[in-house]
């Protein structure tokens, strides 16, 4: 709360539009056994920008994050036209170089702070491992930095906590430890995959507040992956809405939540029971998410779309700019015409 005056409220995208993007992803594809779980994903992230990636289970949002870290499971095939961090190509980087980058330039926070921490090592041991791997410092210095990092994320009596094992901490405290570890080398990019999903709502608010404080201080770019539209709407500058491996909408957070341009986004927003007013009947999106091995030939959302026309069943819409950088993959925005084809 105390740092809210320094927090930007959504202008990072414009401010740094001229500067070199922090992360460039173009035509990213991830496939397992021939099925594309991420299919032609492109986005850029500016330095200091907070990007939200939203989608339901199976939308490919977590696989996108793992691709950027080059941490896909063994049988996952990755291809992309471009995958660059700070101008450095991640596709051709050696395993050794990738190990240097992970933890130092890219930090990651996972959903489950219990499984992400090693239960048989002390918290201090795990933090110091990160520090000593990436910085040439003595054990004593590493310990000092670890204590400082734990203090920064609001862990009481950090000197004692350094020698505790993860099971001694509550879920919220464990997630603070994860954040301290992810940020101890001041990475330029933080990937947070459902960081508060396992937490209670009062603790979730504390963790999100802490992450915004740290972002204002360290100015890192953040990719927040979440299924929770409330969290994303309050936390991010820009949002990608994903659906079975593709981006259907890409816009500033306030625009996505006030004027969604894709029917899927509209349907998602209407599906959430609101906390701040009574609503008797929820709008739902009909049907279910199609499996990746049996996708509709045209627009992937067509079978569930209330606005669908015959052409949607055969034509695949591009992600087109509908003004002000608000992109959506729906031909409704071009009057059911394809851009470039005669009116």
């Amino acid at each position, binding site marked *: 709360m105390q740092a809210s005056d320094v927090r930007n409220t959504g202008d990072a995208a414009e401010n740094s539009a001229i500067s070199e993007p922090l992360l460039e992803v173009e035509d990213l594809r991830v496939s397992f056994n021939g099925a594309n779980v991420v299919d032609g994903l492109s986005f850029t992230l500016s330095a200091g920008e907070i990007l939200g990636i939203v989608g339901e289970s199976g939308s490919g949002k977590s696989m996108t994050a793992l691709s950027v870290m080059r941490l896909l499971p063994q049988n996952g095939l990755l291809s992309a036209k471009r995958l660059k961090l700070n101008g450095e190509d991640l596709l051709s980087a050696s395993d050794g170089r990738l190990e240097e980058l992970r933890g130092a330039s890219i930090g990651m926070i996972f959903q489950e702070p219990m499984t992400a921490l090693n239960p048989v090592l002390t918290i201090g041991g795990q933090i110091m491992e990160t520090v000593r791997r990436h910085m040439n410092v003595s054990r004593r210095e590493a310990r000092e930095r670890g204590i400082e990092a734990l203090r920064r994320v609001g862990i009481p009596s950090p000197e004692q906590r350094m020698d505790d094992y993860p099971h001694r901490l509550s879920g*919220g405290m464990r997630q603070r430890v994860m954040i301290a570890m992810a940020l101890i080398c001041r990475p330029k990019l933080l990937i947070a995959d459902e960081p508060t999903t396992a937490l209670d709502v*009062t603790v979730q*608010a504390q963790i999100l*507040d802490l992450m915004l404080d740290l972002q204002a201080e360290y100015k890192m770019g953040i990719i927040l992956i979440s299924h929770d539209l409330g969290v994303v709407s*309050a936390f991010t500058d820009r949002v990608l809405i994903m659906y079975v491996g593709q981006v259907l909408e890409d816009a500033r957070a306030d625009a996505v939540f006030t004027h969604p341009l894709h029917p899927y986004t509209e349907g998602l927003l209407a599906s*959430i029971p609101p906390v701040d007013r009574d609503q008797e009947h929820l709008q*739902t999106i009909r049907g279910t998410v199609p499996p990746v091995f049996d996708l509709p030939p045209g627009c992937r959302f067509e079978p569930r779309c209330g606005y669908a026309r015959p052409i949607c069943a055969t034509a695949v819409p591009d992600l087109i700019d509908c003004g002000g950088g608000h992109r959506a993959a729906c031909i409704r925005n071009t009057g059911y015409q394809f851009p470039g084809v005669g009116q």
Partner: protein
Amino acid sequence: MISSHPQSDPILVVDRLRKDFTAGKSGFFGESHSIRAVDDVSFTIDRGETLGLVGESGCGKTTTGRLVLRLLGATAGSVQFDGKDVLSLEASEMRAMRRHMQIIFQDPFGALNPRMTAGELIVEPLVIHGVDDHVARERKLRRLLDRVGLASFHAGRYPHEFSGGQRQRICIARALALEPAFIVCDEAVSALDVSVQAQILNLLQELKRELGLTYLFISHDLGVVRHISDRVAVMYLGQIVELAPRGPLFQSPAHPYTQALLRSVPSAAKGRKSFFTIMGDVPSAANPPSGCRFHTRCPIAIARCSTEPPTLRELAPGHTVSCHLAGSPANPFPSV
């Protein structure tokens, strides 16, 4: 005691329900210590009503749901269902009673036997209770599948062939098979994606209207609880701290904990890049704070709160709260 509706027709009356779990001994000859997971919880649910039960993890909401169905033995207190004292029934009477009280769990993966088909799973309760003959069960199965939005060919499929939402539909059909009057929904939509969650919530509401069901709806999701409940009880560390009809509870919450919960839910409307936070974590139930259990995190606590436990009192008809300061200038009521 709590309910004061003029024409109330309670189907469930829970009075001073208590559950202690033993949690190991301190040393070989030491005394075993216990954790009070549910502490003097009382509420009623009227026929055809949905009572929402919200709270954070470890507050005792799930334990309360299981105590009511006698899936767990209570340490003290009473549960009356349809005028019968559930906790003192003989085993055979209890089995008969279970026909009228069912439960839907959070995890539709764990709740269904992977080696039984959807059809077998749905008619299993009928078989166990010896209801109907084979032909009548088959007819009932078709009706139930249709009712929960599944097709009749689904009956021959196994749980792994279904999506999470469809599996939860099977669980619902299974719970409905014995035509119960009362269903405990324990985080029944929490594991589902939002678009599927909305479909299941609408289904539960249609079923309630058509079949005159009564729900105890347990959830940590305040939006979901607001949507489905007629009245809402808020639990903190084993106790109900506030109980009110939905409108007043969400519009003018009287307990500082309820207020904090509601403000903690993020949304762009509450201000971007700012989160309302209260201090600390939920304390351990093994060693709850003295006095008011919320005083360690309460922004308006006074000295009295740390020594004297507040009791539930009625602030407005049907709106009860356990806070010393509710209605005083420090915590005016209504708050908005």
